[in-house]
């Protein structure tokens, strides 16, 4: 397994800036750190060989390796600010819909040391206060709303726990159960309120609730359950109720970590570990599907005992990245107990200086959004179908064994939580054990079986091999700086699988190619999903997989809009930015067993494409070899399609002409499932090697295949796939404008063409 794991406070840094290193021991006693430049991370003996480079920078000597843990689970914490005393009479209440009931006791709302309502291991609602514990005889039902209240009246000296189940059937009153015991008033020593958890003996939140909670409230009087139900249903009346101490409306400030109290006391709180906000609440019955239009209906938070935002490890050390160091991909390497084989790599991008261009005209767009989407993914472990998709048994590398033993590290957006709801968030403020060189994966095809970062090092290794100077910029940099950053370059190269993009990023890339920039899309299934960053929570990303796309889960009815930005989640293709428009091709199929060559089409002889094949003897097939599944076309493949926005003048230079029957259609194209949509039967299942010019003098070259880079790295980067890529890079880096075919130029009227495919 991994004796030491670690993370940095950033994935991108400029020269002269500081990085903090947080390391946790999982067996190591000591470690030494050094800085490496990562050149090629694939250790396949058939490949070009692992390559990194030591950077002469003293990161200190031997350090003790401290054990650090993972503490997942989300909740709300509300500091009491002195307002939680004088509660001789009180009512504590919440509306809750549990999504997971198991052998664990769970807390719905707690005033630690004073009162608590929860659900026990058998599904009974329980309450604790004034030295008494009560429990209902009835059990709660999964995915059903229940109003829970605990009230104490000094007048009759009784403590009462009431629950009503709120049936979704129209107009039916909830069934009520109430239990009452005699009790004597006692002062509240509570200093805080926790929602969906209580304070554990170790001082951390614990006994987390899995499910939705809506409008928790505290009153300084005993409120009858029926009255309470009516009050909770109407925030305007509730907020004016004289004995209200606090009531939290989760529909306010949805895009932030802040939780708003609607009482005059303003007992505001904060979320912990990023639960899902903008979730349908108790009163949502399908009236609207967009939380921005009816935020009042989106008054629930979905909490999970498995949510994770910030591991919050203590800092081991910080260091300044030297001013003179060139832009590139680097790693802080931690070698535990002198064992280099067990080294952990904290990978980061050293971007060019912020204020001035480096002079490089080529940049590699380091796809941190896609790395985050897959961060610590468990596809081969949690998803039984992965083995069918791979066409062979799942391999578990050391980091997978670590993930299996430490699910608390938090998930990727490919997983579901323990209650089977989708994971909307992925964060970089925790170790990302698959963002390392050398690691094997699940989906990389028979051969090297590398994925995302480690697969992208085939491109970095090739750039090093051809002696190309380049900068590395990340998705986060592009999101923040947009076209201003891209404007420094002639050419942007993507990674092998740049699947996830924010609106800012897509707009910047489109603006870049429209204005004369050159884009080399060296991957597959690119520009597919919408993701959002939070202005209030650095380092976390949201993804809601709405309506279509190959996806491990759906976000739930009425929950398709992102909480961070209000954007409609799902495919860019459904949001007015189809990948075909930006790069000529868009996702068509996937299979993770073997890959295929491309067969040249007549368009490859078009004079417009002559520079691409310069110096190559034109064989009928290209890329009948490679480290990823033995061919250049495969894993995830994209097709040109005018109906999806491929420019009419785009040249499809070559296409794969068959795939195994593991390759099937995407749901967005498989409108009517019939058994002929498979790789040996359907022509639509193919990778299209595509080139087109833009009206602004720019150009786009797209491989439409994740496996392309695995072929670039074949035979020590000496092969026709690598040569084609080099030809394109050379011409793209030449500022001479590309001319549109048929004389369509910037400033001239653009001919309207039909978009028949």
């Amino acid at each position: 397994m991994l004796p030491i794991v670690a993370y940095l406070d950033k994935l991108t840094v400029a020269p002269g800036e500081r990085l903090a290193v947080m390391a946790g021991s999982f067996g190591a006693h000591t470690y030494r750190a050094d800085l490496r430049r990562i050149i090629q991370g694939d250790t396949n003996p058939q490949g070009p060989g692992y390559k990194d480079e030591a950077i002469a920078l003293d990161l200190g000597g031997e350090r003790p390796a401290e054990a650090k843990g993972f503490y997942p689970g989300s909740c709300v914490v509300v500091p009491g600010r002195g307002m939680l005393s004088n509660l001789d009479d009180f009512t504590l209440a919440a509306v809750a819909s549990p999504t997971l009931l198991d052998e664990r006791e769970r807390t719905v709302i707690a005033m630690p040391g004073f009162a608590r309502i929860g659900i026990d291991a058998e599904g009974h609602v329980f309450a604790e206060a004034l030295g008494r514990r009560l429990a209902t005889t009835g059990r709660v039902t999964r995915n059903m709303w229940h109003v829970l209240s605990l009230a104490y009246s000094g007048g009759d000296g009784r403590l009462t726990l009431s629950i009503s189940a709120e049936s979704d059937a129209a107009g039916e009153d909830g069934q009520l159960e109430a239990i009452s015991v005699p009790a004597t008033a006692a002062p509240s020593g509570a200093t805080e309120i926790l929602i969906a958890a209580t304070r554990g003996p170790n001082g951390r939140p614990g006994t987390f609730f899995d499910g939705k909670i809506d409008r928790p409230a505290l009153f300084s009087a005993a409120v009858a359950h029926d009255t309470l139900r009516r009050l909770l249903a109407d925030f305007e009346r509730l907020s004016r109720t004289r004995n209200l101490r606090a009531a939290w409306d989760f529909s306010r400030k949805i895009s932030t970590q802040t939780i708003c109290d609607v009482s005059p006391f303003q007992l505001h709180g904060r979320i912990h570990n990023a639960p899902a906000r903008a979730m349908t609440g108790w009163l949502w019955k399908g009236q609207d599907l967009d939380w921005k239009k009816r935020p009042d209906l989106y008054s629930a938070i979905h909490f999970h005992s498995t949510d994770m935002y910030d591991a919050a490890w203590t800092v081991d050390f910080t260091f300044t990245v030297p001013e003179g160091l060139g832009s590139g991909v680097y790693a802080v390497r931690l070698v535990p107990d002198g064992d280099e084989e067990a080294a952990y790599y904290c990978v980061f991008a050293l971007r060019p200086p912020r204020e001035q261009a480096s002079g490089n005209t080529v940049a590699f767009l380091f796809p941190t959004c896609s790395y985050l989407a897959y961060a610590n993914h468990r596809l081969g472990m949690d998803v039984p179908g992965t083995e069918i998709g791979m066409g062979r048994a799942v391999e578990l590398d050391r980091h997978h064994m670590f993930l299996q033993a430490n699910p608390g590290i938090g998930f990727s957006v490919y997983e579901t939580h323990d209650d089977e709801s989708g994971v909307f968030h992925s964060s970089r403020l925790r170790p990302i054990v698959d963002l390392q060189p050398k690691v094997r994966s699940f989906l990389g095809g028979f051969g090297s079986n590398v994925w995302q970062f480690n697969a992208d090092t085939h491109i970095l290794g090739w750039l090093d091999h051809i002696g190309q100077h380049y900068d590395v910029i990340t998705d986060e940099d592009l999101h923040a700086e947009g076209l201003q950053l891209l404007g420094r370059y002639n050419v942007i190269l993507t990674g092998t699988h740049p699947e996830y993009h924010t609106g800012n990023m897509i707009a910047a890339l489109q603006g870049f190619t429209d204005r004369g920039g050159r884009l080399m899309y060296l991957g597959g299934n690119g520009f597919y999903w919408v993701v959002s960053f939070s202005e209030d929570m650095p380092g976390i990303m949201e993804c809601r997989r709405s309506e279509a796309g190959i996806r491990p889960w759906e976000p739930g009815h009425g929950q398709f809009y992102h909480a961070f930005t209000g954007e409609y989640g799902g495919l860019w293709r459904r949001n007015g930015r189809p990948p075909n428009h930006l790069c000529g091709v868009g996702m068509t199929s996937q299979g993770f067993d073997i890959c295929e060559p491309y067969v040249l089409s007549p368009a490859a002889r078009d004079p417009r494409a002559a520079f691409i094949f310069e110096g190559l003897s034109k064989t009928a097939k290209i890329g009948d070899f490679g480290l990823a599944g033995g061919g250049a076309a495969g894993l995830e493949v994209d097709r040109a399609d005018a109906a999806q926005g491929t420019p009419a003048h785009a040249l499809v230079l070559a296409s794969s002409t068959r795939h195994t029957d593991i390759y099937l259609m995407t749901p967005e194209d498989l409108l009517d499932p019939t058994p002929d949509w498979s790789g040996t039967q359907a022509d639509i299942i193919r990778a299209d090697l595509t080139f087109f010019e833009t009206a602004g003098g720019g150009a786009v070259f797209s491989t439409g295949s994740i496996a392309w880079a695995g072929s670039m790295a074949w035979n020590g980067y000496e092969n026709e796939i690598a040569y084609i890529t080099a030809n394109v890079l050379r011409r793209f880096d030449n500022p001479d404008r590309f001319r549109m075919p048929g004389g369509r130029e910037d400033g001239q009227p653009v001919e309207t063409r039909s978009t028949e495919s």
Partner: protein
Amino acid sequence: MGRYQLSANDLQFAREFLASPIGYHSPGLQRVLNRMRGADWAFKYVLVVERRHARWRLGRMPLKRGSAIEMVEDVVYTDLLEAERDIFRRRWKDLTARPLDLGSDDAA
């Protein structure tokens, strides 16, 4: 899931698989593999990497997330195709309650 039952009619596909475990398969073999690799198992056979690209041990991964992976004693592979063939034989036995017997053409 799991409706398809393996029978003696599938022996031809077992032969096909052992000859070429990875790549293009007949529809009949693909159906056998879907049954073997599908979701309805209490555990999955997995290859635990001992040395990348060189040495694997056979493990059984339980369904529940975070469960310990049981190592199958004394099973070590140095070739992924051999590992596939061995896992196929194990599953054939698990699903039919009989060892895979291909008669005289069972080369392996």
